[in-house]
């Protein structure tokens, strides 16, 4: 494929993310990968539910005692908003507006960074309270489930940063359009998982 082929908004295809053969493969493959991720997170969720509040005899930490809803609410808002900003980015990608796409993705990344920051703060706080990874089955399951999600966010941040920098000078072409698009799918999927985390782990945890 010719990377130097120049497009204009008029010649830019309707579905740049699927316009080339490789892009189409990537598009399908990534969706399938998300199907697998669904099962992966389901296993983590199932384990978490089974081990919720389970600890050694006399274990004091419980979901009700630990979780602070305001913090979780802020995190949720950050992540949900970042989902919208990445939608904006894709909107501009389809319109062949490279600059705006980069801008919105950068905002997405910043929001994601904020989310990660709060999550790290939250974890550190728990550890200080004695709720460490190895203190009980509950803590192991909690950190693994929420941590795996956090890890996905972190990977997403590295990914988008690399993409933004790598293509800053080159502009949009059919080679990298699909890369941007898969990133946005990934980011939405992370959001989907978070929706279940704040519901099942935090909200239902506070209820008991």
């Amino acid at each position, binding site marked *: 494929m010719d990377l130097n082929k120049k497009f204009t908004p008029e010649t830019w295809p309707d579905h740049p993310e699927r316009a080339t053969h490789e892009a189409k493969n990537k598009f399908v493959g990534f969706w399938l990968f998300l199907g697998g991720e669904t099962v992966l997170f389901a296993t983590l969720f199932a384990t978490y539910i089974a081990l919720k509040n389970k600890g050694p005899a006399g274990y004091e930490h419980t979901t009700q005692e630990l979780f602070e809803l305001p913090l979780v609410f802020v995190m949720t808002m950050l992540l949900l908003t970042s989902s919208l900003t990445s939608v904006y980015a894709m909107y501009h990608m389809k319109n062949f507006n490279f600059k705006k796409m980069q801008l919105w993705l950068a905002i997405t990344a910043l929001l994601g960074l904020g989310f990660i920051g709060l999550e790290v703060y939250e974890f550190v706080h728990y550890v200080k309270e004695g709720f460490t990874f190895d203190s009980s089955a509950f803590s192991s399951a909690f950190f693994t489930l929420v941590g795996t999600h956090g890890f996905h966010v972190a990977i997403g941040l590295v990914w988008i940063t690399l993409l933004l920098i790598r293509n800053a000078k080159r502009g949009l072409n059919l080679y990298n359009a699909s890369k941007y698009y898969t990133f946005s799918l990934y980011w939405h999927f992370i959001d989907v998982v978070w*929706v279940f985390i704040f519901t099942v782990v935090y909200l239902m945890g506070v209820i008991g």
Partner: protein
Amino acid sequence: MAEVQVYKKSPAEFNLGQRRAKKSMRNQIMMFALMIFLTLISFTMVMAYNSGVAGFSEYFVIPILLLFAAVQVGLQLYFFMHMSEKGHGIPMMFMYTGALFAFLIVLTFVAIVWW
């Protein structure tokens, strides 16, 4: 593989495309508003439950929480991730299969790992 065919849209086509994109973007924003709204309700309900507001029992709140979560996921998938658009048959099939197995796994863990 074959080269991509470059096709230049006529101004009319181009404008139509732009209008469609704008419209779908407006749609997305509305969906976003809906998601925020659902999230707010969820958090508020739990707050209400916690402060003992009457009528908010566990058996009322939890199903609604789960329902809202499911709706939000649907919105993300169908609007933000464009699963409603053409050419998403395969993704849809695999996501649904994955979701079904996911549901089964969670169900058994809730139902038969009890000690």
